[in-house]
């Protein structure tokens, strides 16, 4: 009979290989499901790899998609450090996109000042949107998971309202789109691809968040609260203000992701600017563990799956939501692998 015993220390070997094994098992399981749905999984995976990594343009598209993932992933992960769940990065991204678009369309600012104000407005809009749930959590202990999640639906409906209504391009043949931003308010792109300066901003923020978490008092206090709220209280750390502050920062990062999507990718505000980035961000943050660098690495891996998944829409007429299947499966296997990191099998003879 096989029993499981707790390991004294987490297995180093398992810890190192678990994320890769989880992705591998998830891909195998997804392959079985695809077979069952009458899709050739080998062709599907070959297509995914070819589209996302097989060409210069493919790689650039992967980096384009990794940009919002890095930003929302950073946001979710700093909240995680305090054991706060921000499931609303998607909505915060939309609100950030709205903030940036408002500046671009109605402020009259131009050039680099305009872009800087757009970035700032996006961060504030996303931050305030997340701050609401931070405030409710801090002051009334309202479950932040449910509030952040429900606010996604509200934010998406709000942006739809704007692009169908007051912000609609009058000369846009009634399509739900705002007018194009003036060209000097659109981020420049590299080497004839869609890769925009937002990617550089995301990389810079990885470094900034790393320094913030590891080298500042604020970052230290956040980690103390996350690890031991009682000790934090005795040490005189104001937990309520930290919750609101961290939620604001978390949302601000997601808001900047929204800025990148409208100013870098679309050049205008429209529906569907997020391909569920805010949800993928949860996987990014969970897989990355405690590190900002980890967020960067996992974001790129997730972007490969997103770009590959998108290409299946064209190659095999698969729905976009199909990538959710991969994401769910990867998380399932990560959770299962945690068990084997913490426990080891012991074979015992049954009976005596």
């Amino acid at each position, binding site marked *: 009979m096989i029993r499981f015993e707790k390991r004294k220390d987490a297995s180093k070997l398992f810890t190192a290989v678990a994320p890769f094994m989880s992705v591998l098992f998830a891909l195998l399981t997804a392959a079985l499901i695809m077979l069952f749905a009458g899709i050739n999984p080998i062709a599907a995976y070959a297509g995914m790899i070819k589209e996302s990594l097989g060409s210069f343009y493919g790689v650039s598209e992967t980096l384009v998609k990794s940009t919002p993932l890095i930003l929302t992933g950073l946001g979710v992960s700093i909240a995680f450090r305090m054991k706060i769940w921000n499931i609303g990065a998607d909505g915060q991204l939309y609100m950030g996109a709205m903030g940036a678009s408002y500046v671009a369309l109605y402020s009259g600012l131009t050039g680099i000042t305009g872009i800087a104000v757009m970035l700032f407005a996006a961060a504030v809009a996303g931050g305030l949107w997340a701050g609401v749930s931070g405030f409710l959590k801090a002051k009334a202990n309202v479950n932040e998971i449910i509030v952040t999640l429900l606010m996604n639906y509200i934010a998406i409906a709000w942006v739809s309202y704007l692009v169908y209504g007051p912000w609609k391009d009058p000369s846009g043949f009634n399509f739900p789109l705002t007018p194009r931003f003036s060209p000097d308010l659109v981020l420049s792109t590299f080497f004839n691809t869609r890769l925009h300066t937002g990617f550089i901003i995301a990389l810079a923020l990885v470094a900034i968040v790393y320094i913030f978490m590891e080298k500042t008092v604020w970052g230290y206090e956040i980690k103390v609260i996350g690890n031991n709220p009682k000790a934090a209280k005795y040490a005189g750390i104001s937990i309520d203000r930290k919750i609101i502050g961290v939620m604001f920062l978390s949302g601000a990062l997601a808001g900047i992701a929204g800025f990148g999507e409208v100013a870098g990718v679309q050049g205008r505000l429209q529906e569907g600017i997020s391909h569920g980035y805010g949800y993928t961000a949860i996987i990014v943050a969970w897989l990355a563990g405690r590190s900002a660098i980890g967020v960067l690495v996992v974001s790129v891996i997730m972007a490969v799956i997103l770009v590959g998944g998108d290409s299946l829409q064209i190659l095999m007429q698969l729905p976009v*939501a199909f990538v959710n299947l991969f994401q769910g499966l990867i998380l399932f296997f990560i959770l299962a692998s945690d068990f084997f990191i913490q426990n080891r099998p012991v074979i015992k003879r049954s009976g005596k």
Partner: protein
Amino acid sequence: MIEILLFATIKAGTPLLFATLGAILMERSGVINLGVEGLMLVGALTGFAAAHTTDSLLLGVVAAFFAAMAAGAIHGFICVYLRGNQIVSGLSLTMFGIGITSLFGRSFVGFTIAGFSKVEIPVLSKIPYIGQALFNQDVLVYASILLVVAMHIFFYRTKTGLYLRSVGENPGAADTSGINVGLYRMSAVLVGSGLAGLGGAYLSLAYTPFWVENMTAGRGWIAVALVIFAQWNSTRAMAGAYLFGGINAVQLRMQAMGTSLSPHLLMMLPYLFTIAVLVIATLRLEKGSTPEPEALGTAYDREDRK
């Protein structure tokens, strides 16, 4: 007018009622399940697919229950036996549900079926105002109301119900007194997931008898919020579900009557309302003794027992 609105209220509230009852059952055992949205989608698609292929609504309902149960088993296994993080597992279940139904749902888009039809209960349906709303509905509505009563009896009048509650409150003590914590929790997750699946099936078999991708539109999340509003109590769950059904009904009515308000703004109402209700419910909880199961969201490991 009031009669029409009440009728629509009950109909719109029923999928939420099934899902909320399922979530209550799971949470009472100490397992939180954020995968309700995914389970509802699995139920909606399987129910529709089975009913469409076999021409039997009953088979649709049965298939929805068991398919959601199977999907929920993943969550149960991870949370109960592998002691994994319940929040992450639930979120994964929602992603899994969205993904797998989008894949298998492709071949069912664009079809409709003859959904559940009304069954009028004589005499009672003649009661003014509420008669038509409550007693001239389809059988699933009646089933959901019976389920509310059954769950109340189960929790407060049966030994198994008492054991289940004790597993959610203090699994260590329950274990000591010989209750199989894992078995109770797993069973609660299985049946609860099945009920969430029925909520989805109500959407695709009665409410709007067709399948579209992501047709639950966040109802699973509203159900999770309603559990807190209902204070883990099945009768209060009914009040909560119909409250939201009411908002939905009013919103749809306003759209149908051609109000000048944007449909996108009206669409926000149920979510705004859920947040407001959640805040009020939480504030009320803080004051008195909390009905939240003590061990909610925590894995039980016998080795950690104190």
